[in-house]
């Protein structure tokens, strides 16, 4: 059996124990109104705040998957040896880390990134860091805020890929912890808890006590949404949102499944102005930025902001689902929450679906 029951106090002291051995991240509100995944030890030193609002926190500014795909990551460094040959070394040292307090939507985000970075030519930089990243996730009992639509996007209850998965039980201050991997079994050893003999039953009880529907719902079921997004261009809908879009890329950069990056070379010049030594790093990129689809010669495949909006929506609901057979929007609500002009992918999708049913209705009337 790998299921245990304990309370929040025990979980708290267990987290501090884990944080002594390796970097341990969890969502903390360090300033203002937003949360970030912060190192527990740093927080303890700089902050009086008691234990984080683990179960009620508003999704963090950046999704936890960014810890495995850091901005500015050095891919490799190189130098020219005495024979004039280039020598390469793989970038940064990768140390193991625990990311805790991950909501199911963000867990799914990491799962989708795993799929992308393992597809075709494997991305060793991501995969090596992923292997050394251990995850403690939990099940949401109430929608995090008014932007949540995880149930509609099919990521509520997602628990694949977590080493330990926590479910808050109906009985107050009781939590079910399931160790789902050998690392999880190892980590949970330091937790003070009693073994749980009927996890399935208790979990079912907890899940059925949740509000239904859970968070916002699309006007169509998710399978239908994908078909509509694929089939209809819905120019007017995308245009309407593009009119107030800054093309700033925030929606991409805060998305748990946006993985595009650009690479940058930093080099030192030798005395003969040759590149003797340097590094190649990668930085998060955003397809809403106008320069993203610009190619040599200056042609831009998506110069129009409405085309970029549609591209984003289709990446999440059409293109990537076709390839990986899963919806690439997790319903975390970050893009809508953080857009300064309130462009929410949830609204776009619903508007596209509604505009299509109107079109279909009009055609039937004729």
């Amino acid at each position: 059996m790998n299921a245990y029951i304990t309370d929040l106090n025990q979980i708290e002291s267990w987290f501090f124990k884990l944080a002594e051995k390796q970097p341990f991240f969890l969502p903390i509100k360090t300033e203002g109104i937003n949360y970030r995944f912060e190192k527990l030890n740093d927080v303890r030193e700089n902050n009086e705040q008691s234990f984080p609002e683990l179960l009620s926190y508003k999704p963090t500014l950046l999704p936890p998957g960014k810890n495995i795909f850091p901005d500015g990551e050095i891919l490799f460094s190189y130098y020219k040896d005495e024979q004039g040959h280039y020598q390469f070394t793989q970038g940064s040292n990768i140390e193991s880390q625990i990311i805790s307090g991950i909501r199911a939507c963000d867990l799914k985000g990491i799962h989708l990134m795993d799929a992308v970075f393992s597809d075709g030519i494997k991305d060793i930089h991501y995969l090596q860091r992923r292997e050394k990243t251990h995850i403690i996730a939990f099940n949401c009992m109430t929608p995090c805020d008014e932007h949540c639509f995880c149930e509609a996007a099919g990521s509520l209850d997602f628990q694949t890929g977590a080493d330990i998965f926590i479910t808050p039980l109906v009985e107050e201050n009781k939590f079910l912890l399931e160790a789902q991997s050998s690392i999880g079994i190892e980590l949970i050893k330091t937790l003070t808890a009693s073994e749980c003999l009927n996890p399935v039953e208790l979990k079912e009880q907890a899940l059925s006590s949740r509000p239904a529907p859970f968070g916002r719902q699309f006007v169509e079921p998710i399978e239908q949404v994908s078909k509509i997004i694929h089939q209809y261009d819905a120019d007017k809908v995308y245009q309407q949102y593009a009119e107030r879009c800054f093309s700033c890329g925030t929606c991409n950069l805060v998305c748990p499944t946006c993985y595009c990056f650009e690479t940058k070379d930093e080099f030192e010049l030798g005395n003969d102005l040759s590149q003797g030594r340097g590094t190649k790093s990668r930085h998060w990129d955003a397809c809403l930025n106008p320069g993203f689809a610009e190619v040599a010669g200056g042609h831009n495949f998506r110069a129009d902001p409405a085309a970029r909006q549609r591209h984003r929506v289709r990446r999440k609901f059409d293109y990537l689902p076709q390839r990986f057979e899963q919806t690439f929007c997790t319903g975390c609500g970050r893009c809508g929450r953080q857009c300064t002009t309130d462009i929410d992918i949830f609204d776009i999708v619903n508007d596209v679906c509604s505009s299509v049913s109107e079109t279909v209705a009009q055609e039937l009337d004729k």
Partner: protein
Amino acid sequence: MKPKIAFFDFASCEGCQLALLNCEDILLELLELVDLVEFREAISEKSARYDIAFIEGSIHREEDSKRLLDIRSRSQFLVALGACACNGNVQARSNFIAPAENYKLVYGEEARNRVQIDKNYWPLWAHTRVRSVEEIVKVDYQLRGCPMSANEFLHLVKALLSGQIPHFPENAVCVECKRHGNECVFDKGLSCLGPIAYGGCDAICVNNGHVCDACRGLLPYANVEAHNNLMLSKGISKEAIKSRYRMFCSAEKMSQT
């Protein structure tokens, strides 16, 4: 022969050149590779031709634009250095105000009344329009910001010296804020020009708890109308918004406001 690099200053505080002098480690590395032939802040050597000419400052008088044309004709690459050269900077706010009104702002009402009866009292600057370098000569590269960023400077010089094309993404400041995991300035209850302003500064102001005032100028695709509406929705007056836009972006086109 080492490539020749020169710095020229026009109407500016020369802060960009000082920002460069502050990066001693970068400069020493660079000086190994180039000949610095004109740099008023540091040396007084002269040269007939330049491989890279850096222009600091905005252009006001006719004689300044002639000097600039002369520099251009002797330079392979001409780079606008800093906000004054790139978009006029704060001094270009005077472009929006009638000369007599400007004069009053500086010297008071009495002086303004005097120039209206005696044209000899007009100072040289009073009738000039503040221009960016690009309004007079072809600019190969812009190193934006008040002051310019030493990292971008080094990137540009290294790229040009080694025969590459320097790359400055035309992205909003928001991109760099997100890369830093900053809380959005609007979430703090403040307002920000980041969504319509050139990034490249690494969001240095927001990283340090300030807001963005677009010292790097407006992006060519800036959705000013949407930004204006956003600012209005936060309860900021039309006048205050206009003034904010003009602070650093004054010589830029602002067709939509």
